[in-house]
């Protein structure tokens, strides 16, 4: 329990990932699936950001002449988080466009109803 408390950021990140993952896989409403995707990605970014930060150190921008690497954190995880956010935004945009198109055609976002409607329309199994 003690270890969990020390690493509370990582624990929260993994819980967020789990929530998002389950929503993305099992929720029947497509819009909520998409929100689940965003929660899942946020979980990973929180994990990355939390692992990348070291208590008491600063961003690696030299202003007061300290050249000791021990004074600074590694900037790469922050860069990765930013890249990941950009990717996540573009994926969300594409998915939203898809959902709009699907809603225009079937007037619902419930996956089960959409399946039933599409089977009715094509008359296939």
């Amino acid at each position: 329990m003690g270890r969990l408390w020390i690493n509370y950021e990582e624990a929260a990140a993994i819980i967020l990932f789990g929530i998002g993952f389950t929503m993305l896989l099992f929720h029947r409403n497509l819009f909520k699936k998409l929100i689940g995707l965003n929660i899942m990605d946020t979980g990973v970014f929180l994990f990355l950001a939390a692992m990348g930060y070291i208590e008491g150190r600063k961003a690696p921008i030299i202003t007061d002449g300290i050249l000791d690497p021990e004074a600074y954190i590694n900037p790469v995880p922050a860069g990765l988080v930013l890249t990941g956010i950009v990717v996540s935004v573009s994926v969300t945009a594409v998915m939203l466009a898809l959902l709009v198109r699907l809603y225009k055609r079937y007037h619902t976002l419930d996956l089960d109803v959409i399946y039933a409607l599409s089977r009715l329309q094509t008359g296939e199994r």
Partner: protein
Amino acid sequence: MEVIRNFPLFTIILSLFSGALCILLPGRTARKSALAVEGVLLLMAAAVLAGVLHAGEAFTYTMGEFPAPWGNEIRAGVLEALLAVSFLGILFCSVLAGHTFLEEDLDVSRIPLYYTLIHLLTAAMMSLIWTNDIFTGYVFLEIMTLTSCGILIVREIGRTTLAAVRYMILNLVGSGLFLLGVVLLYDLTGHLLMVPMRETIAVIAGNPASMRVLNMAVGILTIGLAIKSGLFPFHTWMPDTYGWATPTSASVLAALVSKTYIFLLVKIYFRAVGIPVLEQMHIRNVLFALGILGMIVGSVLAIRADNINRMVAYSSAAQIGYIYMGIGLGGPAGYVAALFHMLVHAVTKSQLFLTTPHLARVSGKSLKFKKLQGSGIRNVEAGIFFTFSALSMIGIPVFAGFASKLQFGLAAVRSGSSIRLVAVIIALALSSVLNASYFIRTIIRIYSAEDHAKRAHLVRKDRLPYMLPMLILAAFNLFLGLLSWVVIGWIEQGLAMFV
């Protein structure tokens, strides 16, 4: 040799730029420029292949000249170059053979956008093949996902939108897991480049506590890529996706996109995790079991399908099972068989997906088996090529499918485990029988017709754009089948360079 070093990066940059350029061009010019660019990329990749084969060693290209543990690298060995050449060749054939259908399936104003997507997909594919950096792998993985969704939804019927949503959801689950795996590996090792990562992993693998986390990270990453490439039980998106896309897209998605993910997985195994460490993990056994299950289940579902494209799609699920079985077998021979089968399946499946729409076109645009009765007589060329690739899928000698099945058998013998050997032999035999039963049934169906059926050929307009790529693919198929030892030699050399 010095010039060749730049070519891998050029293939990525050139396809990105010409993708942007395609938006501005009118439809017909866009197609020609797309084909021209694919041709140039193909030549570059071939030059790299010749270069590394001649030099006998791989080279890395450091982006921005930052030295090894930092910066971003591109790496080209025999295996990367071989896959780049084959995939670009298949892409070229798919674009050339599918464009007559593209004009039917798409609004004319959208055609340049389609080629833009194809170019972006090429860029993503090339990056995933060449990259030496695991996070670059993630970014281009997502670009691949988005563009492959794009080439799927261009055909605006309700089924493709629905298929795209399903495809995207499972793919995004896969990407999320892959990202989590990458982040865990980065936190464990502090490196994103594959080789420094492997060196660190070799050191920390001795510690049981880090080995547990390592096991989890590699497992999560593997499951992510397995979902994206459609390993059983994650194959459910395949039939809708491949079955309703426009033929070029179906061919590209089935033959190239899923294989690129698997290649990335193999590359990460060899270069980022390291085979000695991987041998201690259990994820291989999971892949082996799921691969064998996939081989059987995919074939059974293919028998039950009532539509030729769905049948071919389910057969893809079975073939992905073969590849994962090879990876799960382990040992050099297992990986060689898996990589060889990737090429075999790519060339055969693209030929099938480019042929079935021609059979459907002479059968009232229906892909249903009932309507396809006698379609091989109504379109002689398509019938011949369908039979050709179907025989290769079954694994008749002379064709490529036989060579790869032989490799799987040999790999099982060399694996040294009698349980695995028995499992592989039974699965291969059962799956071949099932394969044969549905493909031969289809061949008989497309050649049996009522007496008044007339033999007919392709209309003149379609003949060249269909025949040329089909002959190229058939020649490649026979090359893989008859001269398999050449390609297998290259794959072995490439794997040796990986370490």
